């Protein structure tokens, strides 16, 4: 419970400090929060007691702790990346609120991952979503930001309504909301299949799987960049974690059913995500669709149903955090410095900002899965786990999609390094925090691939479908 308590305390401390600071000193809140959060991240790695609390509503063990730590690292990078943006005039007055909302959604994700029953799961899910909509609509004068906010809010409310309806039927048919009891008595009557599919649709919304993904690109485009990267990396990662836990632990009695479901959705998601990514001009939209395609790949690990499957999913999410945050970090740095977010604006970037371009190239190569960058290993493990479960055709389709994705990832590289531009984005220097964040991403992109023990570490904690 340490993660949750510490983070709640942290959010409250930020709130109180903000109240105490005089208007002129508000900027101090940024370093304070970031340092506190860094400490919190480090504290997360201390050994923790596994066990259950609140009558098994809350459960924690090394696996949950690791998932939370992975999210922490990602959030830390995002906090560092948002410093420049927060210093802007229009955001000055609501810095503390930004932090508090971000942290409370993270608390929601913690509870969601550690949930032992569907009530805590639902509550965590909503805590991770509802305040986020306020952040998506954070930019006042931007109509796009408001549009993103309302689209996120209404469509997520619809999806969680459908999810809840499914859950109510699960409760009605099994008599409990606790995972253990549901797992013991869930079977495959039509109503329970319906309930499961409604539940799955709600989860698919959060991970933006096709056909429940339509909100993604619009919301990503309209939100402030840091919020977009938070949504696409942290929210999606947390939702993938809890989805795999619930599928493996709670719905193991209908494994053959959800495997077929995931099979269909995986193919749709990879293909449609790719097809849309091909035609995007806005970098945020582009990354949105590419992240949809990436989510399709995650399903390959889930469908494996084995210990290796879970390991590969966790590993992939970890890699994905670094690659996507690397890409978003560059987008955010450029957006903050110049306000430009289109791919055309990136033409000739290499000549003016070589370091940013190189990081972008690395991140994009990682997303495309080109060795020796970490992304390759992430994809490789996913493919391996799906192949070892016998899903050869699925792996084949995934491989084809990986080739298609290569094409559009190269478009970005091409824009930065090769395209000519009369007036490329001028050379600029980012501040300290952004640089630290970008360096962290770069290191992560290489270190994860070459640090062999990491895979074993995750593998030792992972679980397969319960029997």
């Amino acid at each position, binding site marked *: 419970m340490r993660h949750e308590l510490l983070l709640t305390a942290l959010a409250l401390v930020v709130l109180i400090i903000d109240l105490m600071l005089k208007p002129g000193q508000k900027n101090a809140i940024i370093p304070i929060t970031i340092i506190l959060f860094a400490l919190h991240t480090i504290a997360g790695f201390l050994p923790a007691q596994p066990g259950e*609390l*609140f009558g098994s509503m809350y459960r924690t063990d090394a696996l949950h702790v690791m998932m939370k730590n992975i999210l922490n690292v990602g959030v830390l990078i995002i906090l560092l990346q948002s410093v420049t943006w927060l210093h802007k005039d229009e955001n000055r007055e609501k810095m503390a609120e930004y932090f508090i909302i971000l942290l409370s959604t993270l608390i*929601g994700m913690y509870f969601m991952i550690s949930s032992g029953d569907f009530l805590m799961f639902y509550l965590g899910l909503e805590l991770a979503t509802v*305040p986020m909509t306020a952040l998506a609509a*954070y930019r006042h004068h931007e109509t796009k930001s408001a549009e993103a906010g309302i689209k996120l809010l209404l469509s997520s409310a619809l999806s969680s309504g459908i999810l809840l309806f499914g859950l109510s039927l699960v409760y009605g048919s099994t*008599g409990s909301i606790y995972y253990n009891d549901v797992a013991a008595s869930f079977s495959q009557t039509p109503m329970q299949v319906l309930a499961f599919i409604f539940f799955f649709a709600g989860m698919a919304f959060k991970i933006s799987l096709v056909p429940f993904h339509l909100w993604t690109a619009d919301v990503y485009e309209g939100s402030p960049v840091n919020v977009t990267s938070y949504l696409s990396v942290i929210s999606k990662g947390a939702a993938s974690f809890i989805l795999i836990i619930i599928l493996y632990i709670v719905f193991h009695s209908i494994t053959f059913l959800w495997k077929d479901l995931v099979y269909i959705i995986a193919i749709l998601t990879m293909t449609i995500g790719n097809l849309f990514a091909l035609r995007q001009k806005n970098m945020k939209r582009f990354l949105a669709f590419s992240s949809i395609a990436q989510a399709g790949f995650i399903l390959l690990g889930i469908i494996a149903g084995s210990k290796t499957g879970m390991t590969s999913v966790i590993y992939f999410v970890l890699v994905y955090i670094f690659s996507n945050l690397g890409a978003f970090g560059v987008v955010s740095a450029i957006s903050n410095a110049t306000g430009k977010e289109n791919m055309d604006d990136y033409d000739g970037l290499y000549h003016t900002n070589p370091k940013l371009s190189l990081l972008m190239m690395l991140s994009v190569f990682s997303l495309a899965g080109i060795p020796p960058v970490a992304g390759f290993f992430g994809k490789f493990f996913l493919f391996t786990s799906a192949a070892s479960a016998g899903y050869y055709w699925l792996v084949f389709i995934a491989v084809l999609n990986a080739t298609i994705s290569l094409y559009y990832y190269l478009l970005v590289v091409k824009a930065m390094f090769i395209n000519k531009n009369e007036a490329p984005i001028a050379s600029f220097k980012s501040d300290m925090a952004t640089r630290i964040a970008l360096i962290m991403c770069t290191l992560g992109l290489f270190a994860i691939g070459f640090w062999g023990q990491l895979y074993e570490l995750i593998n030792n904690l992972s679980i397969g479908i319960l029997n």
Partner: protein
Amino acid sequence: MNNQVMFVFLALMILVFSVLTVTSRKILRAAVYLLFVLVSTAGIYFQLEYTFLAAVQLTVYAGGIVVLIIFSILLTSHISEKAAVSEWKQSVLSTLASGAGALLTLLTIYKFTFVPSPEPASTSTVTDVGTALISTEHNGFALPFEVVSILLLAAMIGAIIVARREKDKNMNSENK
């Protein structure tokens, strides 16, 4: 018999006003119909002897949310304003989708045999509810109760930063 009459009445109220809520062309009226739906639902809770829940329903839902909605309607629309109708294609498709969903759901629910739990019922007086609310044991709900307070706080802060008007520049033409 009384029960049945009461139930039929409440059910009809709920269904009729639900339909009216989503079809009425005057937004303010729709909000009032929603209020009726919510109150009738509270009636059902009363009937099921969940008085605490019914009270929550009345105060939070009917008293809080609907008031908020009406307030925002007054802010953003003229009372006489009629809501635009959606194109027929969209209406037909939506009817089909929700109709198919409803049919499918009713069918599967109808086919399912619900088995009541053999264990004896516990009462649901306000005392029991209170005990469960602060219990940290199995079937105790202290944790969600605490967490929901974080959610409400965060949502409140969120609502404030979104709706708050900034003191500065070019928003002066707005009349709130």
